[in-house]
Structures are given as C-alpha cells and as structure tokens.
C-alpha cells in the first residue's frame, strides 16, 4: 500500500495534503464509533504534508515514506504532543523529546495523524483498560480490538492510518493485529531502540509496526531498526534489509509447527492454520514438528516478571516531576499516595501490588528468581527448536475477537497471551499475519516466530504466504463495519 501511495504522490495523482485530508476526514467521520485515537494532530499533519507537496512541486525526489500518514501508539513519546499512555496519570503530559522511532519516521517525512488508544500503560490484552474508554473492533463494534496496541491495529484496519507504530510486551502488537485482520510485527529485543518508549516491563518491551500488508511493515521496520546509543539494549550490529528479501523463494526453508500452542484451538481456526501449513508446503517450505514442552509455563513466568518490572518502573509516577498531582493532601507522603490512587486505573494498581508481592524479599526467590531461571530454560528449549527449523508457526491467539466485557477476571484475561509471550521472554521477532475468518467474519491470525535478528527471514515467509492467500481468505469489512 505504501508503494502505491508513493507512486500516486510522485505521479501527482493526488497531493500529500489531499491524502492527509482524506485520512483526517475518515478519522473525523468514523473514529467516534471506534475510539482508536486519543489525540489527533491535524495541524501538524497538514504542515508536514505541505512540505512534501512543496518538494514535489520543486521537482525534488521524495522518499518512500514522505507524505505517508501514520499513527503512533500513545506510550511512544512525541515532542510537544500529549503522550498519555492511556492513563489519567499522564493526561496532560507533553514529552520534550521524540522517541527514536518517531524521530526516524519524522526524518523520513511520514505524516503523524495522531496518537492511538491503548490499554493503560500497555497493561491489557483486550484494549478495554484505557482511561479514554475501550477501543472497538472495526469488524464488529461491540467486540474487543485486542490490546494493548488496540488503537494502532484499528487505525490501520479501518483505514484511519496507512501504518501504525505500536509496542509489544507480551503480545500487544500481534494480538490486536490478529483480532483486526492486519499484519503486526514485534521485532527482536534490541532491534529497535526503546528510547522514548514509556516503560512497562523493560526486559520485554519492544516497539514494532502494524500495517495492511507485510511489505508496508518491512518498509517501516527497515527505517526504525538501527543502532541507537541512547538505549543500551539496542544492538549495534548492521541489520539485513527486510524489504530486499521479501521476494526470495521459500524453497529450502524449514518451518516448525509448535505443537503445544495448537492445543485448545477451535476447529475453525485449526482448519485455517492447517490450510496455511499446506500453503507453506506449496511454497517450497519443509514442515517439521517442534516442541517446547514447558510452554504453558511461559504465561506465569511472564506475569511474574512483567508485574515485577511494572512495580519498579511505575514507581516514578509520584506527582513530583511530571504526571497528575492530587489536589488535596496534607503531606508529601499523602500527595504521592493520593496522586497515584487517582491517576492509575484498577488493572495498573493490581499489577503494581502483585509485582511488589513477587519482589518482596520474603517471596523473591520463590517467584522472581525462579521465573528468571524458568525463562532461561524456556529460551534453551526454543533455541533447540531453531536447530530444527528456521521459523516457528503457531496461532497468534486461540480465538477471534470476543464481545467487550466478556473476560471478567484477571487470569482469563492473562490467558489470551498464551501463544505470544514466548517471543518476548526469549527476545525473538514474531509476526501475526491474517489467515482467514471465522463464521461470523471476524479475522484469525497466524504467528511466525523467527530467530534473533532474523526479521528478514520472518517477513520473507509472511510476505510469500500473503501472496498465496486468495482474496476470499482475506478479511473483508461488512455489516457493522467502517471503511473508506
């Protein structure tokens, strides 16, 4: 899609301002029903688009992303633009700097349409825990978008942005991508700088891309995946271009089917996944079975570590230097407690409490330290899978989207992340690609996981698969749906 729009701009079939206006007017018309944006940056978007038009009028060459409208998740810092993290705590917070990924995309001339809705501080899998209200699925407005990058996925699915930047701590890009029928990439840990990403769980967080198709995702990924000394965990090595590998045939590639993650999927989804496996075979890939016997432990390990890191990371919100401060208090102590009480939502408070329980000296060995050891042992098992296969295939999530409010308790909400957390625990890249629809027309996603820093191999396979999926397999809008 990006390439086609770029061609249209270069051939002057439409101007960058016209393109931006088209998206802004779609947001205006449809987003009140979907709630995918928290902030829309109309003036800034038009100003960037005007600069691109000037370049085109002067006969200058423009880059592939110049004039392309994008959305950015609201936990990724944007200079001078409110970055709320979907929380009351940061409802007026304006960062004084851009996140690295945003900086790169601005340099490329991409047009920022606005900041997308998300589960508060990234804590949620359904898109329902935002202070600004739930994001709704464009295939059925009473269904969840998935989370936590729900707004990003919906903005792309409903044509309210060409692509979106999201973040993924335990599946937050892939899960909403699966529920909304778009492509979502969580890169390897260290592939994209986390500079300017407001931290939830620093050893798991990663910025990634959501797009209509794999090529768009690869184009954007190539531009944000660079070394950055401002994030000490961002890798220094030179990256292989993902775009230049997309057309490579899959002959000789080995795809491992992760058997444990198929247990409990519906027969409809099972059928879609088996069809995908047949297509990969047809494309020349060899299919092998691989196993991570303890994969069910990845969820409890993930929640212990994520809550522990969250308790520590969110301690900085004390109403002193930034963030909301309570109006009524009598001491500093009371100011901090009341500010946090008023600023955080229930899910966040619950995870902070849980995290502090795991980190208490009396419990530390039983939970946090044990979880780190099991994490290391899970990574070893996954490493052994990569001795047999280049990529690992599984469902992204065991279901299609479900009605808003359907998952009432914390544990059942946590369980939606079963297939996605392994990639975060092991720092591996993973992509969710649409692989069909259920009988009501809601999209399914399949997940491919790659070896560390092998995004080019991962996206090559996703792209090749996408080329063979016949139109009827691609999710369509209809009925209760919004599109332009």
């Amino acid at each position, binding site marked *: 899609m990006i390439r086609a729009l770029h061609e249209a701009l270069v051939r002057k079939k439409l101007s960058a301002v016209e393109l931006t206006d088209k998206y802004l007017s779609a947001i205006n018309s449809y987003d009140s029903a979907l709630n995918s944006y928290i902030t829309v940056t109309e003036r800034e978007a038009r100003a960037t688009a005007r600069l691109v038009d000037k370049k085109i009028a002067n006969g200058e060459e423009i880059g592939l992303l110049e004039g392309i409208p994008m959305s950015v998740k609201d936990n990724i810092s944007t200079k001078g633009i409110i970055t709320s993290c979907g929380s009351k705590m940061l409802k007026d917070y304006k960062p004084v700097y851009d996140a690295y990924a945003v900086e790169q995309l601005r340099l490329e001339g991409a047009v920022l349409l606005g900041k997308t809705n998300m589960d508060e501080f990234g804590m949620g899998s359904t898109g329902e825990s935002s202070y600004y209200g739930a994001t709704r699925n464009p295939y059925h407005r009473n269904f969840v978008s998935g989370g936590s990058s729900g707004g990003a996925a919906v903005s792309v699915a409903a044509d309210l942005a060409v692509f979106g930047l999201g973040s993924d701590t335990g599946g937050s890009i892939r899960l909403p991508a699966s529920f909304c029928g778009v492509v979502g990439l969580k890169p390897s840990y260290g592939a994209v700088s986390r500079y300017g990403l407001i931290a939830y769980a620093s050893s798991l967080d990663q910025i990634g891309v959501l797009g209509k198709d794999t090529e768009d995702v690869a184009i954007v990924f190539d531009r944000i995946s660079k070394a950055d000394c401002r994030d000490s965990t961002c890798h220094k090595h030179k990256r292989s271009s993902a775009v230049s590998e997309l057309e490579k045939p899959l002959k000789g590639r080995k795809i491992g089917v992760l058997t444990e993650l198929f247990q409990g999927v519906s027969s409809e989804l099972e059928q879609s996944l088996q069809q995908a496996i047949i297509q990969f075979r047809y494309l020349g890939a060899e299919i092998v079975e691989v196993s991570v016997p303890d994969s069910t432990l990845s969820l409890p390990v993930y929640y212990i570590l994520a809550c522990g890191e969250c308790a520590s990371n969110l301690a900085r919100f004390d109403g002193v230097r930034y963030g909301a401060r309570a109006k009524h208090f009598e001491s500093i102590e009371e100011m901090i407690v009341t500010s946090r009480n008023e600023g955080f939502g229930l899910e966040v*408070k619950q995870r902070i*409490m849980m995290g502090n*329980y795991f980190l*208490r000296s009396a419990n530390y060995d039983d939970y946090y330290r044990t979880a780190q050891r099991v994490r290391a*042992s899970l990574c*070893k098992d996954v490493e052994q899978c990569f001795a047999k296969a280049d990529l690992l295939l599984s469902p992204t999530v065991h279901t299609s989207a479900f009605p808003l409010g359907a998952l009432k308790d914390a544990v059942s909400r946590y369980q939606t992340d079963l297939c996605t957390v392994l990639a975060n625990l092991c720092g591996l890249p993973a992509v969710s690609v649409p692989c069909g629809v259920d009988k009501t027309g809601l999209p399914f996603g399949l997940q491919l996981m790659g070896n560390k820093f092998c995004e080019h191999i991962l996206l090559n396979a996703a792209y090749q698969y996408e080329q063979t999926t016949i139109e009827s397999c691609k999710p369509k809008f209809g009925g209760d749906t919004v599109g332009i």
Partner: protein
Amino acid sequence: MMKQTELKTLEKLSKLSFTEKEKKQLQKELDAVLLFVDQIKDADEKTETGFENSCDLREDNIVYSFSREDLLHNAPTKEQGFFKLPRRGEY
C-alpha cells in the same frame, strides 16, 4: 489466601491505598493470580542461572541532554527553576 496484613504491607510498598470494599475484590483477584503463577514452583529447571539481556555500555561522558526549562516543563508546580513540593516538617 493473601492475609489482610500482607495486603496492607503491599499497599504501603506500592504507595497506593484501597477502601475496604476494594480490598476484598483485590484479595480475590490476587489470590487467583497467585494460584495461577504458583505452577512455576514445580518447574523442572534446566539452568542454574537466570535470564539476561545483552547490554552495550558506553563511556560515561558528559553530553548535552535537556535544558532546565525542558526538565521542568511537565512539573505540576515549580519555582525559580526548581520542582516545588509541599513543606515537609516544621521549621
């Protein structure tokens, strides 16, 4: 089941406070989460060491970062180039 005294300690550590009604609901949720994560205690650990992400450290050089004005930009209250906080203790 998580004891009330434990919840009180966690409230203090977390710098949060809950009403009695909220605490009851929270206790229910936290108990369920604990039951869920307790399965890792039976895990067959194949490694002695924990997981570590690689990290590239740089020289600790002084470089320009942010101006004082920038850093105070989001402060709820400020005065003469400082964060302003309520008075602590008596003078």
